[in-house]
């Protein structure tokens, strides 16, 4: 067996969807090229951008940082990073430490924001409450709010997240299966919000399968936090992911075709289902909100904070 590209007999990966067999160097190069192609095709970066990387220390965010850094080295963009510490014992701290080390290694501006400091309660403490809405509900909303705020404070022009092909396809299928057409229109490589307070979000890894990102960080010997959140459990996303992975065993191109199909109908959906977003403000914190209170603040009120 040898590398389909350079003939090196030391191969590390067989790409099911194309039959390609790759050595370490050719594999690494293929991942970086793929992300760069997405960035160019979708015009994710503009010269002079200051990109805030949502850096958890996991494989996806570290890969995002690594790839964007090649643009920084060529003086095309500037990079900064934010890490959200949700306050999950025996889990989060390792990721935070790894994020700090990457930021120091690259010499970029980096900020760690904890839920406890920001809102006076950690995720672990929320989970002690009766009638909580499930860890991931709070985690997602508070994390988004903190990242949006950090983007403004750090004068970032874009926010980069580590969403990979699997995440994106799960999102498409979940929203479709749930009939959530509103959220269905919000997926895609670049989310631009009507409210100017929301910084544009970009997903440079959305065409790269999760497994390939995992192999990339191991091949490049990048330090990442591999572990599962203690609150991760049976979720609808997990079930959808299982079904898609089962289908992908016999149909290795299925994730790509789902993404392509979605990309083709996305604009039609957006135009058809366009909603007039109210330019309201949260009366508690001043963040853009469609109701009196933004999501984060309505959770805080429910929690009596």
């Amino acid at each position, binding site marked *: 067996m040898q590398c389909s590209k350079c003939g090196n007999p030391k*191969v590390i990966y067989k790409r099911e969807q194309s039959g390609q067999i790759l050595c370490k160097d050719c594999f690494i190069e293929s991942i970086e090229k793929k992300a760069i192609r997405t960035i160019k095709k979708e015009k994710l970066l503009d010269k002079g951008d200051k990109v805030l990387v949502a850096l958890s220390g996991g494989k996806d965010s570290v890969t995002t940082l690594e790839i964007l850094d090649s643009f920084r080295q060529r003086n095309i963009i500037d990079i900064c990073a934010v890490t959200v510490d949700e306050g999950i014992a025996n889990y989060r701290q390792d990721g935070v430490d790894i994020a700090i080390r990457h930021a120091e290694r690259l010499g970029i501006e980096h900020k760690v924001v904890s839920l406890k400091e920001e809102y006076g309660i950690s995720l672990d403490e929320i989970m002690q409450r009766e009638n909580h809405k499930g860890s991931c509900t709070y985690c997602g909303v508070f994390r988004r709010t903190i990242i949006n705020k950090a983007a403004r404070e750090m004068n970032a022009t874009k926010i980069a997240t580590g969403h990979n092909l699997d995440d994106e396809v799960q999102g498409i299928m979940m929203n479709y299966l749930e009939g959530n057409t509103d959220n269905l229109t919000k997926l895609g490589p670049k989310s631009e919000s009507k409210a100017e307070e929301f910084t544009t979000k970009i997903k440079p890894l959305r065409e790269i399968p*999760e497994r390939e990102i995992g192999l990339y960080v*191991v091949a490049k010997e990048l330090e990442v936090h*591999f572990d*599962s959140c203690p609150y*991760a459990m049976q979720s609808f996303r997990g079930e959808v992911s299982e079904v898609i992975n089962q289908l992908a065993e016999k149909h290795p191109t299925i994730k790509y075709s789902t993404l392509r199909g979605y990309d083709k109908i996305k604009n039609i959906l957006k135009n058809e289902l366009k909603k007039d977003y109210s330019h309201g403000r949260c009366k508690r914190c001043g963040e853009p909100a469609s109701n009196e209170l933004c999501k984060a603040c309505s959770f805080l009120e429910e929690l009596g904070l």
Partner: protein
Amino acid sequence: MKFTLKYKQINEEREIPDKNYSIKDLLDDLELSAQTIVSKQNGELVIEDTVIEDGDEIQLVQIIYGG
């Protein structure tokens, strides 16, 4: 014919059960999915079809987790 398996807290010698015993066979025996694991043979990344040799150190790294 033996090899060393390293996986999370596991660090143990195991018998190679038969000729042409591959990493894929090992993953099946351990009931691990090749989709969530990458494998190293004597410190170098390899594909799952790789046959385990006498004296090998096989390290498995789980790369996909929930959450």
